[in-house]
């Protein structure tokens, strides 16, 4: 693997990591409010389908992108109903949402396999795209890549510096104290779930509008789960989520390039790399996480009191 291939690899890493980044940011938002939503895969793929269908019907990729967010939020809303209203177990509800979401998207999307839809293409940022190294890597991507990057400081600002974000985090750390202080626990959890779902939906939209312009059953291919793992790796911080997402995008792109260059390693083993790396990274992050960075009330439902 010589140096001339590193630059295309980095560019591919960013493209490949962008859907994961959207999803990771979304799940961070949800978990910060104290809700564990494992339905990321289900929300991502329904978002991808919604984006694809909208783009086909209207020819407007930007609209399709937004609709995907709405659909992602709506699917996340199911989780909110089951867990916040009916106090369903959050872990199982998320899993059920994944099974349901995958089934729904694959079912409705089966007639659309093999078709294409208008989407986003790569653009060249004026002047900057001529920079050596950074030019092709960072400044010749499609617009959604930049949207995702922009969301990182935005989410950080919301969580750390805004009043709403403070309330949301309080609800995730000490819901009883927050309630006593007059902060609506359920309200902020709804915001966390719906907002998170929308971001995950955006991630799905990226897959069918920008990464490819196609649809197939199972388009998300496990990226939702990697996002859930990355939230832990990122210590629930948006900045590190960016790093993690691009790292994983890179690994996925890397093993294919290794084959292209010519290797004797069996491809089955190479394909294990992203998953093995996820485990390694998760273990490392959890082990080093002496003072837990997870929101204290994560995954615990609020019972009605008498």
């Amino acid at each position, binding site marked *: 693997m010589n140096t001339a291939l590193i630059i295309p690899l980095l560019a591919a890493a960013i493209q490949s990591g962008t859907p994961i980044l959207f999803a990771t940011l979304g799940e961070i938002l949800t978990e910060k409010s104290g809700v564990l939503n494992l339905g990321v895969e289900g929300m991502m793929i329904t978002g991808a389908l919604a984006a694809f269908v909208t783009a086909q019907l209207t020819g407007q990729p930007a609209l399709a992108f937004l609709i995907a967010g709405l659909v992602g939020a709506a699917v996340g809303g199911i989780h909110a109903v089951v867990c916040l*209203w009916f106090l369903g177990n959050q872990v199982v509800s998320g899993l059920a949402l994944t099974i349901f979401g995958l089934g729904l998207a694959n*079912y409705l999307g089966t007639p659309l396999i093999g078709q294409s839809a208008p989407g986003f293409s790569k653009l060249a940022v004026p002047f900057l795209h001529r920079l050596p190294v950074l030019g092709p890597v960072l400044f010749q991507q499609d617009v959604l890549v930049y949207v995702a990057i922009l969301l990182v400081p935005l989410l950080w600002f919301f969580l750390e510096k805004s009043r709403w974000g403070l309330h949301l985090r309080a609800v995730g750390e000490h819901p009883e104290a927050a309630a006593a202080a007059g902060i609506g626990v359920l309200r902020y959890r709804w915001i966390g779930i719906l907002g998170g779902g929308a971001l995950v939906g955006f991630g799905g939209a990226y897959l069918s509008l920008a990464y490819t312009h196609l649809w197939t059953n199972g388009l998300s291919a496990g990226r939702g789960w990697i996002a859930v793992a990355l939230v832990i790796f990122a210590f629930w911080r948006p900045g590190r989520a960016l790093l993690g997402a691009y790292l994983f995008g890179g690994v996925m792109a890397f093993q294919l390039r290794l084959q292209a260059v010519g290797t004797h390693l069996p491809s*089955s083993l190479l394909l294990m790399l992203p998953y093995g790396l996820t485990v390694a990274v998760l273990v490392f992050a959890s082990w080093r996480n002496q003072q837990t960075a997870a929101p204290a009330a994560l995954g615990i439902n609020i019972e*009605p009191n008498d």
Partner: protein
Amino acid sequence: MPSINAYRRQEPGPWSSCLVFLAAVVLSLAVSALMLKLQGKPALKGIELLFQGALGSRWSIEDCLIKAIPIFLCSLGVAIAFRLQIWNIGAEGQFALGAIGATWAALTFPEQPWFVLLPLMALLAFISGGLWGLIPALLKLRMRANEIIVTLMLNYIAILFLDYLVYGRWKDPSSFGFPMTPTFSASAIVPKIAGTELNWGLAVCLVCGLAMWIFFRFTRMGFELKVSGENIQATRYAGLPYEKLVCFVMIVSGGLAGLAGFLEASATINRLQPSIMVGYGYTAIVVAWLARLNPLTIGIASFLLAALRVGVENLQLELQVPAAFGGIMEGMILLTVLAGSFFNEFGFRIRRRS
């Protein structure tokens, strides 16, 4: 001004869980009928075909039973893990490892008589699956790694490992390069029950179900497990061996899924090939949650979800419904049961504000 207050019941109502399940099934059928309508298929006819395909003849009921065997075993294991609040999503990978372990025995000792080879295959399947389940348990205990992610990633790795073996060193030389092992020798195949298409894996299910019932009813560890699930903190304070329980639970959980893999490879396909993986490990999650720790209800739920799969095939054949239809129903049933359980656990009181 009256207000409605919810309070947690001491004991969930006895009839309520059945009612909730029934309501969940009905609601899911209704949503599925709607889905059919959305695709322009006749809704009522579709539901009728679903039942007909699954239960309309002796062969289809047998098919449901055959399919229920691996689901049942995986679900037993997953249910035990869930009881301790260990979210074992890895039944799929443990299933694969079990199949691999059994296949190794079948390919290495094909000449052995069946009463030596079959138990050996079962043992190796249990051990391989169990080890694959132990890994996430250890990572959880030592490194506090979230078992949901670890077990899930191990699923992908296990399937790729299976691919690696059947594309490589275990590939049948007479298969014209297609990825599959040689057919197992006759003594490595779990035989069919005479006069039917069912295989003796059914007996394995009965034995395991019984063993589980005895374990939880009459043994100390079973009691500890049942109690520990409620409140992990209390468990530790009470001096119960939480770490040991976690390891035990994951080994058993993985081992049972491994047994399912052995049975599927030996009895149904008679060899190892990538298409042995059809998602039983994920269906097991649904069953385990629906049926909790009662082997009988696990059996019924396994049968019903197997019937769903068989019925959906009929739906495909007659109405050209896409294959993903079954996933919608599975997910819906679980979601509605989850929501409905609220009414099991909470009662309502109307209060007048003074």
